[in-house]
């Protein structure tokens, strides 16, 4: 492993982790709204959120490029008023991974919230707790398994993001190159050995994340399974 390899691995892990962390609060809030509330425009929002799942990733990348570029509405605003450059920087990598992982997390989180029995939340309300207190003390802990599963899935997706990232962040060595982008360019350059090293690292990281999640979730399931059969008597 070269110093360059370690830089790529570190940057990929950092960008994927930051992208995942960024989507957790809005993703959980949106998933809860989709699971528990009816509101005008809900179907439209559902479609928009799911769009990155079905669009070619480079198409999503192109949309991001147009939005976040210097002449784009968001990118232009950020550069003019905050002095922030987005495209072809690490910020673009984080945004691309976040956008591509968002629908996966929202879908998992929505199912997690839907599986919490409404009756438990109602009982908690009658026991004197406000909506916010019920959410924090009942809904969130009971949905924790599903939310964690969704976060791990989002992180794994972020680690391997390619199409949207290459469009909006390019593949700049030492600046925006991630494991996935580097594997592609190394193969293009005929440096298969270096590409295989990064491939092995990818497998180890993704496998470790999934194993950790499964182990933790499995332990939680054994500890408190609301669907376990009741003893009688």
């Amino acid at each position, binding site marked *: 492993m070269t110093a360059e390899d370690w830089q790529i691995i570190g940057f990929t892990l950092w960008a994927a982790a930051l992208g995942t962390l960024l989507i957790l609060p809005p993703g959980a809030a949106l998933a809860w709204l989709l699971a528990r509330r009816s509101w005008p425009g809900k179907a439209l929002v559902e479609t928009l959120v799911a769009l990155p799942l079905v669009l070619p990733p480079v198409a999503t990348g192109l949309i991001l490029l147009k939005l976040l570029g210097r002449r784009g509405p968001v990118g232009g605003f950020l550069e003019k008023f905050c002095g922030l450059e987005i495209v072809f920087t690490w910020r673009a990598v984080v945004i691309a991974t976040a956008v591509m992982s968002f629908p996966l997390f929202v879908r998992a989180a929505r199912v997690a919230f839907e599986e919490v029995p409404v009756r438990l939340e109602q*009982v*908690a309300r*009658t*026991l004197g*707790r406000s909506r916010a*207190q019920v959410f924090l003390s009942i809904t969130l802990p009971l949905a924790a398994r599903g939310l964690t599963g969704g976060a791990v899935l989002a992180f794994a997706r972020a680690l391997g993001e390619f199409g949207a990232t290459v469009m909006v962040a390019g593949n700049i060595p030492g600046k925006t190159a991630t494991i996935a982008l580097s594997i592609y360019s190394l193969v293009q350059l005929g440096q298969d050995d270096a590409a295989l090293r990064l491939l092995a690292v990818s497998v180890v990281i993704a496998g470790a994340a999934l194993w950790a999640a499964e182990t933790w979730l499995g332990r939680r399931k054994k500890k*408190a399974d609301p669907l376990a059969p009741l003893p*009688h*008597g």
Partner: protein
Amino acid sequence: MQTPSLRLTDVRLPLAAFHLQVNATLHGRVTALFGSSGAGKTTLIEIVAGLRQPACGRVQLNARTLADSATGAWVPPEHRRVGYVPQEGSLFPHLSVRANVLYGQRARQRGAARVAAPKFTLESVVETLEITPLLDRPGVNSLSSGERQRVALARALLADPEILLLDEPLAGLDAPLKARVLPYLARVRDEFAVPMLYVSHAPDEVMALCDDVLVLERGRVLAQGAPRDLFVPAREPRYVLKTAAS
């Protein structure tokens, strides 16, 4: 025993099969909401608990108006001071037995729903319901059906309610277990003096526990009165509604 006054004035709510329409004052220590399955009993208890909003009408508990469509008054469930025990108990599966029992008490000790001097202590409630040995269990999954109902009852009592709303608490239990749990309900009635609204479709339970009965049929009040005036002895079940017997 505190004299309860739960007044339902022209409470209406359209349901899938019929329109619920109730006009009644409930004044028993333990009032039974009696009727066949799908008569609207659970819906009515949910309206009292604040879990459903009636299309129109007024709900008053003692001196307080909990809901009034004419004025737009609406007290949310957390401020109603009702102790709701659903059919399945609905214990929180991620909390220990002790945390379940104390869930409502903690809420009443803080925040807007605060009660200055709670009527019941943890010790008195758990001793009466004989759940002291269960308190140290780390989860509720190991509890039997009867234990679950007693823990749910303790949880509701410790929230210091003005009225207990019990939605068929014995429905999921077989006959011998029912016979073991019923005395605990009678103890709550006699020792804690909390008025109860008791949903049931079992005449035996109503005769054993209640002193007032509201009979519901397809969302309408069919009759109201003392159990002995509304039920006649029968072979199996041991009591039936007079109208059904004649």
